[in-house]
């Protein structure tokens, strides 16, 4: 999509308010065209060169009313545009987030959160700034054409000559602005390197002290500081250079005017009033041209920014990013309805599951796997053997080839199919949100207190909740930092249990749990009368012992499967994992 098409699409969100903004700002930026004209009249009258009635007070009065009236327009324009900008930037951010969290289909979201956030923040702002240039643009064009018209009516030849430095301003701005932005980014990166290093240094000051490494570490700090100084100066240099060029072009234009008219100024051919018209218009015109040059740069930048927004949202079509559904503003979350599903889980069959990493490396090849209702299935294997990929592929978190059948029927879009109450999932490194523990467990779905305590009990989280200051209402901090690693994992497990899903999928849940807690966890899940089916990744003995069937993964394929006893007898790999893998042997 071109930048122009994007902007046209954006203008169609609340078009009336956008048009009102554009009208107000056209008036704001266009009205100074009268100032030059009026100043000319005033000075003609003062120098006694006016041809008609020479009362200077009329133009002074008009000047005063326009100058003060503009401030009212400025305020109105701000009020309308602030609302529009904020709402529309939320529209874009909402659309991107919604696509990533809700759109059907599988996609690899391979983004460092830092980069993704900078797209959500800065790239959206870049697109909005480009849109803003269309709000401002009308006024600048009115002023440009108007002032050039007034100047040309006085002296068309001179006006034509003056276009040269003005045009140069435009071209140079357009060329230099992207470079300035690049340098500013480098400067910001250098600053982040410095602050990041200070954070690391004092986060680990104990280690640095213990290693007796203060000297070399400070040396590194000096290097980073020096690097930042260079980057900062490069930025300052070019910014100042551009400013100088623009100011100087205006000065050159003024000087050309002075020299060109020196022979006839003061004559009726070129009055003092005419001179002040030129002197008043030229600096603002140069600024105007710099602004137009900046728009060309913004045009390109908006295109790049939108491409990045498309990259972050992986497979979102432009129409989804630009979706015009009104932004919902309310201080309360709309109610979420719990989905109802009727058919009881009996059997899951995975056939010929394959996955290729985005970099071309093979991830999974021809994986077959079966889960029957009530079974406990364990996937094990060395690091990088594809254990987690099997789970994520089945759940539709990554795009796979092959066939997945639920109760004998083929699942077309696993991503939107494998959700509660069919399945629930706890990843290897679960993420919590800065919210209450209760909301982290319920995920915002309506839940009774009994359901909540049941989930916590199953996840062996009850004792921890009792010890927390405000129980379930405790705020867990950003990303759950106020909880210990084990508490975070068990909270995520509680979230899984809270869904009441029939098939529980979890990736290495026990890695941060001690033996006793792990035993209680399995005991709770498989207590009498429980009707749970579980598909888990683990290399821990308690899980392996309990498994109805184990799949041993190697290089992205199932190398062996069966019960623990069968595998220990047949699979050398299983035997190796069993002996090497367990640190609990002395217990």
């Amino acid at each position, binding site marked *: 999509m071109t930048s122009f098409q994007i902007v046209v699409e954006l203008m169609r969100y609340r078009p009336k308010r956008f048009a009102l903004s554009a009208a107000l700002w056209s008036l704001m930026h266009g009205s100074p065209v009268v100032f030059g004209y009026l*100043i000319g009249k*005033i*000075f003609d009258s*003062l120098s006694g060169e006016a041809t008609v009635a020479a009362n200077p007070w009329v133009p*002074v009065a008009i000047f005063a009313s326009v*100058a003060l009236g*503009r*401030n009212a327009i400025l*305020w109105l324009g*701000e009020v309308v545009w602030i609302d529009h900008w904020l709402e529309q930037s*939320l529209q874009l951010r909402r659309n991107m987030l919604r696509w*990533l969290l*809700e759109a059907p289909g599988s996609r690899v*979201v391979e983004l460092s959160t830092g980069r993704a*956030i900078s797209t959500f923040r800065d790239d959206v702002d870049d697109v909005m700034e480009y849109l803003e240039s269309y709000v401002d643009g009308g006024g600048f064009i009115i002023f440009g054409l108007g002032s050039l018209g007034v100047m040309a009516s006085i002296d068309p030849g001179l006006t034509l000559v003056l276009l040269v430095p003005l045009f140069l301003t435009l071209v140079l701005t357009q060329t230099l602005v992207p470079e300035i932005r690049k340098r500013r980014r480098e400067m910001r990166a250098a600053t982040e390197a*410095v602050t990041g290093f*200070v*954070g690391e*240094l004092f986060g680990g*000051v*104990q*280690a640095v*002290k*213990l*290693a*007796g*490494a203060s000297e*070399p570490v*400070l*040396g590194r700090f000096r290097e980073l*500081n020096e690097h930042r100084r260079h980057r*900062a100066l490069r930025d*300052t240099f070019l910014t100042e250079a551009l*400013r100088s060029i623009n*100011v*100087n072009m205006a000065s050159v234009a003024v*000087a050309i005017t*002075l*020299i060109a008219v020196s022979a006839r*100024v*003061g004559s009726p051919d070129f009055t003092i009033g005419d001179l*002040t018209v030129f002197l008043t218009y030229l600096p603002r015109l140069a600024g105007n041209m710099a602004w137009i040059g900046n728009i060309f740069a913004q045009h390109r930048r908006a295109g790049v920014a939108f491409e990045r927004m498309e990259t972050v949202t992986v497979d979102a079509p432009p129409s989804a990013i630009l979706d015009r559904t009104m932004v919902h*503003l309310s*201080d*309360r*979350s*709309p109610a979420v309805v719990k989905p109802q599903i009727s058919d009881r889980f009996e059997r899951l069959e995975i056939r010929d599951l394959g996955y290729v990493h985005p970099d071309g490396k093979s991830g999974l090849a021809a994986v077959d796997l079966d889960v029957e209702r009530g079974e406990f299935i364990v996937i094990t294997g060395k*690091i990088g053997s594809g254990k987690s990929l099997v789970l*994520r592929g089945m759940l539709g*978190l990554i795009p796979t080839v092959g066939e997945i059948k639920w109760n004998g029927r083929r699942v077309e879009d696993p991503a939107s199919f494998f959700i509660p109450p069919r399945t629930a*999932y*706890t990843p290897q490194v679960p993420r919590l949100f*800065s919210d209450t523990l209760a909301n982290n467990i319920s*995920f915002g779905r309506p839940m009774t207190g009994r359901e909540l305590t049941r989930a916590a009990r199953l996840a062996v989280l009850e004792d921890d909740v009792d010890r927390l200051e405000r129980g379930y209402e405790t705020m867990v901090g950003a*990303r759950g930092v106020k909880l210990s690693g084990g508490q975070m994992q068990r909270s995520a497990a509680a*979230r899984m249990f809270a*869904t009441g899903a029939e098939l529980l999928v979890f990736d290495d849940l026990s890695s941060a749990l*001690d033996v006793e807690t792990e035993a209680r966890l399995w005991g709770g899940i498989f207590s009498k009368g429980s009707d749970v089916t579980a598909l888990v990744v683990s*290399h821990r003995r308690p899980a392996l012992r309990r498994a109805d069937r184990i799949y041993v993964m190697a290089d992205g394929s199932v190398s062996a499967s069966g019960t623990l006893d069968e595998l220990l007898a047949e699979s050398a790999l299983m035997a190796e994992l069993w002996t090497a893998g367990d640190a609990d042997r*002395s217990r």
Partner: protein
Amino acid sequence: MTAPDYRSTLEYLRPFRARVTLLAAVLVIGIGFELGAPLILQRFIDAALGTIVVESLATLGILYLALAIGKQLLSALATYLGADVGWRSTNELRADMAEHLIGLDMSYHTSTTPGELIERVDGDVTAVSQFIARFMVKLLGSGLLLVGVLGVSWFTDWRMGLGISGYVAMVLLLLVRMRSMAVAAAEEERETSAQLYGFIEERLAGIEDIRANGGGTASMASFVPVSTDFFERTRVAWRRRAQFWVASNTAFWSGDIVALVLGVVLVLADAITVGTAFLLLQYTQLVRVPIEQVSQEFQELQKAAGGILRIDAVRRLRSAMRTGDSPLPPGALSVRFDRVHFSYDDKPVLSGVTFELAAGRTLGIVGRTGGGKTTITRLISRLYQPDSGSIQLGGTSIDTVSEQVLRHHVGIVTQDVQLFAASVRDNLTYFDHSRTDDEIVETLRTAGLGSWIDDLGLDTEIGSDGGGLSAGESQLLAFARVFLQSPGLVLLDEPSSRLDPVTESLLAAATERLFAQRTVVIIAHRLDTLRTVDEIMVVSDGAIVEHGERNDLVADPGSAFSAMVAAGEALA
């Protein structure tokens, strides 16, 4: 509040005296040029009207060009020089601050977050840098320009001088008072956007949790109040800023109106020439920028003053550590505690701990969390100063040994491995570039970590959160650091979390090699590890419950240790 000590901060400018002088010269000449250009326009108009006589109008045009371009180049040069001096001098200040802070003992660091220290070392210092760079260029420059404009105005005509002076004073007062409003708005805005992006960031990080647990709709529903809050509060902040713009814009344009009225009145009264009336208008517009800058820098000045105060406070802090310059013997070191007491935050942590460990022996310390195990290693490594009692290494009291020497002889591996966002090499050597790659690889090969480092690669960049390294690999890296250091005494806080099987076995082999030829104190979390140690010490409630040969304690069914083994109790 005491007055900030500007002098000690300005000391940092001393090495750059030549640059500062140049900067001042550039500023003054530039301001002269800036004042001159409108004066030429004034003469041009008056000459054209025949009020005054000049040789050639075209020459005035050329002179105008020279002054205008010269003024702009000088102002650009001044900004550049100011930035350069600001960065250079404060980089020195930053490094000094960092060095000073590293030298403080751990009781300071445990009570201060890294975030606060980033503020001290970078935030406050940057405010000072802005102070130097901008105070010089903007505040002094703008102030001088204002004075110049007023001077020329008064000189030209007293009524013009009076008009412009009144205008400058009023607008300056108005802007300084309103600016604080705009500053509060900027802070409010920063806070609300931090909340919005915090929400988005958490959802992106938890994307798989959300999708696979059907939390998408719920997340988008909770986006509604978050984005509404962002909308409402940012709107208030932006409107406040817009008010500031409208107010300053009104003030500036009122100035133009007053200048025009005054000009017309004075010309009609034949008090000034037409050229002077135009000069009046030009000067009124010329002072806009310096007025804005002075009002803005006024705020910055307050920020810098706060920064200087805090920097001074940090510089006055002193480490509680006693130190000396005794050497430590080479090779394995013996350890001796004699009635060591230590309390933290007035709570006793160790009470009268006395023990001896001969050089070359390995000691395993076990006991419940909070019993004082870790404190023993922290006192040996001099992160804290004991309240009383003495600690000797190799027969030398550690109070008489410099930190530098001690670090050289004592190596430590903690559970939390501190990583830097840098290459594996820099992480191994702590940026010590005197180590060659061959030396590093050779040392690690003898430690049995050769294949590990070959796989990992010295040039691999890792993130500060350990991006790219598993927990096990971070542990291996910490071990490798100690091998490179080759100390006579190793303190090891065994990792309690579980690692994957392959790393686990690599780590076990490395541990075994590390133990050879060295004195080792290990805080053990697993019974396995304790099979290889010579001595066991059981610590509880800040006192030694039991200390003896491992074999003796195992053989004695009445010992606390054998009870622990029998119970198979988790050790951490």
